[in-house]
C-alpha cells in the first residue's frame, strides 16, 4: 500500500542551525502538508501546499520556515535558524484531489534542538 515516507527519522541540531526535513508524499497525491507535535501536545497544522504554492499557513509558520517541492517526488520543510522551541515531531501528510480532507501521514521526523 502506498505510504508517505520521511527522512531523517531523528535530527539533532544546535540552536541557530538550519535544518531541512524531507518527505516523499504518496505518488498520485497533489496536496501536501506539514504538521508538528510537541511532546505531549496536540498535532498542530503548519502549512498546506498545492500547485507549487502555499495554500494556507498557521501563525507558527513564520519567516523562519519555508517549504519547497524541488522535484516531482520530494516535499521539504526548511527551518532557517532553529530555536529550542522548534523541538517537536514534524509530520508530513498528503491527500488526493477530491478527498483533500483524508490526509495520510508519514512516520515523522523527531527534531531535537540543543
Amino acid at each position: 500500500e502506498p505510504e508517505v515516507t520521511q527522512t531523517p527519522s531523528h535530527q539533532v541540531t544546535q540552536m541557530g542551525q538550519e535544518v531541512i526535513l524531507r518527505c516523499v508524499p504518496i505518488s498520485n497525491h497533489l496536496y501536501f502538508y506539514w504538521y508538528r507535535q510537541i511532546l505531549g501536545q496536540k498535532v498542530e497544522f503548519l502549512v498546506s501546499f498545492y500547485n507549487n504554492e502555499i495554500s494556507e499557513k498557521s501563525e507558527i509558520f513564520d519567516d523562519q520556515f519555508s517549504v519547497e517541492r524541488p522535484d516531482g517526488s520530494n516535499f521539504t520543510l526548511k527551518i532557517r535558524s532553529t530555536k529550542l522551541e522548534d523541538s517537536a515531531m514534524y509530520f508530513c501528510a498528503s491527500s488526493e484531489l477530491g478527498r483533500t480532507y483524508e490526509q495520510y501521514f508519514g512516520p515523522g521526523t523527531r527534531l531535537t534542538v540543543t
Partner: protein
Amino acid sequence: TQLLEQSPQFLSIQEGENLTVYCNSSSVFSSLQWYRQEPGEGPVLLVTVVTGGEVKKLKRLTFQFGDARKDSSLHITAAQPGDTGLYLCAGARAIQGAQKLVFGQGTRLTINP
C-alpha cells in the same frame, strides 16, 4: 478558534468491555477524521465521516458523525488489548481545496487482558 475536545482523555478498561469516546466542538466541520497514533509514529487514518448523522463501521469500531456536524463518537465493542493506543479526532472546515485539519488532544485507551 476552532477547537475539538476529546473525552475522556484517558480510559482503561478490561478486555471484552465496550467503550465510547467522544469528540466535541462548538464549530461545524465539513468532515471529521479519526486517527490512531502509536508512540513515536505518525497518525494512521481509520475513517472519515462527512455527512451529518453518518455511521461507519470498521470491524468492532463504530464511528458516528453528529447530525449538526459538530461532534463525533467512536464506539468499540468487545475491546481487545490490540485496541490499546491513542485515538485522535481531526476536523476539516473547507469543502474542497487544501485542508487544514484541527486535531483534538486525543483519548489514550488501555485495554487490560
